[in-house]
């Protein structure tokens, strides 16, 4: 397969930053290799003319077009009312660092 190099090392670093991932130099070069291999494979989608095709995000979109299940796609939303939820103390107990009320994190603003 021709090395068209869809993804450069800079691209890997850019998406790693967007995804909040820290990669070693070894990982960066391996991910570049793998992403290029996967995207070369994905490129076959370009063969299809989809200009007139609506994107499908959810299965309910097609169920809505089918007779007996037509109500599924657009059924009524639940009542907007307060319901019981998990207890605050129980949830905070899972936190790596907390003062009991809030989650504690390192400094947010970098100087």
């Amino acid at each position: 397969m021709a090395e068209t190099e869809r993804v450069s090392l800079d691209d890997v670093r850019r998406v790693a930053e967007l995804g909040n991932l820290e990669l070693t130099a070894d990982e960066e070069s391996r991910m570049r290799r793998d992403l290029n291999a996967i995207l070369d494979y994905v490129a076959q989608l370009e063969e299809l003319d989809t200009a007139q095709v609506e994107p499908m995000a959810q299965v309910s979109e097609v169920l809505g077009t089918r007779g007996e299940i037509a109500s599924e796609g657009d059924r009524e939303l639940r009542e907007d009312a307060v319901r019981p939820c998990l207890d605050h103390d129980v949830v905070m107990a899972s936190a790596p660092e907390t003062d009991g009320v809030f989650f504690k994190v390192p400094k947010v603003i970098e100087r």
Partner: protein
Amino acid sequence: MSAETMNAGTMTAGSIEGIRSAIAKGETTATAVTEIYQARIAGDDPRIHAFLSVDRDFALAQAARIDALAAKGEPLPKLAGVPFGIKDVLTVEGFAATAGSKILEGYRPPYTATAVKKLADAGAIFLGKLNCDEFAMGSSNENSAYGPVHNPHDLERVPGGSSGGSAAAVAAGMAVATLGTDTGGSIRQPASFCGVVGVLPTYGRVSRYGLIAFASSLDRIGPFAATVRDAATVLGVIAGHDVMDATSSTLPVPDYTADLERGVKGMKLGVPAEYFAEGLDEEVRAAVEGGIEKLRAGGAEIRQISLPHTRYAIPTYYVIATAEASSNLARFDGVRYGLRAPQSDTLAAMYRKTRDLGFGAEVKRRILLGTYVLSHGYYEAYYRKAQQVRRLLTEDFLKAFGEVDAIVTPTAPTPAFKIGEKSDDPVAMYLADIYTVTASLAGICGVSVPCGKSRAGLPIGMQILGRHFDETTIFRVGQAVERL
């Protein structure tokens, strides 16, 4: 472990109704049944590694409650005394939930998944949590941060993935039924590799509340069991609407076992040419074609059909699934639960260090890919394009179901491969899902049923795909295949 002992394990595994009625009649107790399965786990699982955690006392306490009911002569619930395990991407209040990842080490969720709660309410006995690929990302179970699962039919081979532990536990007779999850084939493909029944319910049939999300428009929870009847029984228990999952369907849940024995006479079954093309192992082809001939002999009308966009399914799937995963996995940041990397000066550094420490290579690869296909300048070319092709793939099925009642195919292109064989080549690994991702994208239901073995003794599965919410039909076909 020898093949003989494995077969003996499967042979002596009880059926759901067998266990329930034996307890009701006083021939055995839920405690005795639970202890048998716990002993099997203690004896066999060190070699298979299907379980990540077990809780002996919790299971015995559940069993004691069933025995108390039986002693009073009260009616027993549907799954009374049935030992089951659940894939460790589903939550059980107070029990460690790892999702096969280091990033959730030590996390004990404060709530129980709806599907698990329904099993417990039906009297099933919870044995423990089952090993899986990290965040359900994988086709071999080699991506678990806690080590791979070994296939009970050949310990040097993978059990399939990502629900490898769920399939292997049933195959080895260490649980009567288990829950897995399927995003691109993660129930059906391991069922095929391990020689058990695995069900992909229609999207929306089973609530996803309590499932640690991978790709929300694709993720589904479904059962594994040794027989179609047991799998259908478990689905009947876990299916149904749940206010905690807005995508769960309000359609009534039928009795999936009522029509099981009706056979396939007069049924129209489609055989798609694209699923028998290049890349299909000859022994798998022979086994599945043999199964189809027997369905014909049972009175089904076999029709050649075409699902023309099939070859675009894997690229479509890996764009959509990774895009959704990159968004879903953003929540693992060291703030609210699980792992936090020590000694970071800033919040941003803490996020990055935690995720570097906590995520394995495949998860990082998919987050990067998903982030890339959603990023500025690539969204239209990759993500929107994949969503358009998803509709074409779905329309292929809707059209086919205008002329056939169900579709039969191989579940996987090969029997179980060796541990390590594909672990360095992501594209080769992704192709293990080539026959399963289509149904995932379309939201239709499917089941993998054993339909023979290779010369080396490895199980081969047949996949039966059905219309949205028509599980009844695929179970009928599956039952006929089981009877062959």
